[in-house]
């Protein structure tokens, strides 16, 4: 068991978090999540520092997605664990509140609003950020709804421009290639102006070019905007190249953590995850 009080220093691959979860940008302390007989997340503690880029890897069904879901409040953890967002205990807060506090998220299965076009998809989360007011929305011309909308659209188009999505802005999601859809998913969470971004396999199913683009955007966001990135990824090449730290999950528990290069060389990790010697 990792210590409850003072976080132990980062010593080895299998020790506790180097950053105290309760003061981290995003953290959790002894979180467990079970579904009936399955323990999807098993007593996990992590702390992610402001501005870090962390990757989570692990075999299928290891509980990676579940961990993200617990972190952002889609699932309530089993009793006992705590979740922290910029030093604040948010364990009991619903997911939408955490999102508004700056926790962005992309999805393994995209979960875009399929029948809408790209612009609308992004405008939606932008609307969340704005907290629209019913009366001004209804009146539109009189109550300032129009001004707010125009302002939102301006911001959204900046994002579109930034992610090089401009030419697709009026295409419906269903008709777009996967690579673009993944980028729209990213754009959608960026519209919330998050501090911490959770990426669930944002590059799976992409070609090299598309992955390259994605990494390019992420790197820029990380460096220029200081976004904290937590990324689930199966492509180890990407993981080792870009992330500063790496966490390996297996059967819900953390089996290794630390510098990517040293983690991937760990025989245990190789046996369970990479399958190469």
């Amino acid at each position, binding site marked *: 068991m990792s210590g409850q009080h003072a976080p132990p220093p980062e010593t080895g691959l299998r020790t506790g978090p180097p950053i105290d979860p309760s003061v981290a940008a995003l953290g959790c302390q002894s979180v467990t999540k079970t579904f009936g007989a399955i323990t999807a997340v098993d007593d996990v503690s992590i702390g992610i520092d402001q501005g870090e880029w962390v990757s989570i890897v692990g075999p299928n069904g290891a509980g990676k*997605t579940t961990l993200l*879901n617990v972190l952002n409040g*889609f699932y309530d953890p089993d009793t006992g664990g705590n979740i922290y967002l910029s030093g604040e205990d948010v364990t009991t807060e619903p997911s939408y509140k955490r999102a508004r506090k700056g926790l962005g998220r992309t*999805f*393994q*299965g995209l*979960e875009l609003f399929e029948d809408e076009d790209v612009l609308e998809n992004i405008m939606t989360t932008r609307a969340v950020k704005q907290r629209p007011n019913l009366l001004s929305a209804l009146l539109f011309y009189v109550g300032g709804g129009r001004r707010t909308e125009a302002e939102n659209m301006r911001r959204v188009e900046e994002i579109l421009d930034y992610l090089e999505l401009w030419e697709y802005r009026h295409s419906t999601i269903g008709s777009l290639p996967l690579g673009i859809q993944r980028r729209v998913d990213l754009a959608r969470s960026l519209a919330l102006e998050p501090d911490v971004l959770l990426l*669930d396999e944002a590059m799976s199913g992409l070609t090299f070019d598309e992955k390259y683009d994605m990494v390019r955007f992420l790197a820029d966001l990380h460096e220029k905007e200081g976004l904290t990135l937590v990324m689930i990824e199966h492509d180890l090449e990407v993981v080792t190249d870009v992330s500063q730290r790496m966490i390996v999950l297996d059967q819900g528990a953390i089996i290794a953590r630390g510098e990517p290069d040293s983690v991937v060389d760990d025989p245990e990790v190789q046996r369970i995850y990479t399958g190469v010697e």
Partner: protein
Amino acid sequence: MVDVGALFSVLVTGIGVGALYSLIAIGFSLIYKITGVLNFAQGQFALLGAFLVVTLSTSLPLWMFDVQVPVVAALILTVLIGAALGLLLERFVFRYFIGEPVLSVIIVTLAFLSIIDGGVRFFISSQYRAYPDALQPDWSVSLPFDTAVQAPFVLGVVLALLTVAGLMAFFRYTVMGSILRASASDQQAAMVLGVSIERTIVVAWALSIAITSIGGILLAMSSGGAGFTIGDVTILVFAAVVFGGLDSIPGAFIGGLVVGVLRQFGVYLEEFLMPGLDSVLPMVFLLVVIMVMPYGLFGTERIERL
């Protein structure tokens, strides 16, 4: 003040009518389970069955044709016509809605509601039709507390039990049963396994209409004949299937019984509380159930994963 005998007979009558609701509810959840459609014309299909039997077994003409066959033949014919209707509906209607929004199909069922109601009025009768004596069996089964269960109720309970058992076995133990559920869950993935969606629709509707007609006939038998108020059973069927969970066959069965009992109990309570409870009680109970168990007793919970 609590009269055990009276309560017992409320229970018995309730289960009796409930079994008839159950049959119709089973027909309803069958369609929902396989095709995802809420059939708003469920009561009308029951009504159609109830009227077909009279027109076939008495001198009442079916539009310009005066058919009259023995009662047993009329019963069998009605159920067969119901099944054949499933086939026709697929061929001429549902086939065009494969892959289209479910709500459109629901509107189609609303259109059926109009069509059957008007069609029966025009082609069969716009009047209440009393059942011939052969369709009004007068035997009954005696139970304690001086209560007796009428023939249609006994038949209803037996048939409903048989249907539930048969369908449960079908869905649980046969390839076809699994395939029907599979195509409800993912049409395309089922199609690449060789499933013809058309055929699943035929099976769903044919079975459903046949079972529903039986329910409708029994309902008419128990009330002396076929009338248009049979169509109003749809709302009770809704209540029943929600108790049980929309897509659960045993759920529909139990739901039907519960609704039947609650209705009779509502009538019973009228003496102590206020009238009109028989239509309301099932609904109130439905709301309570749904708040506690959003997918009813046995309904399939939607898998919520991200």
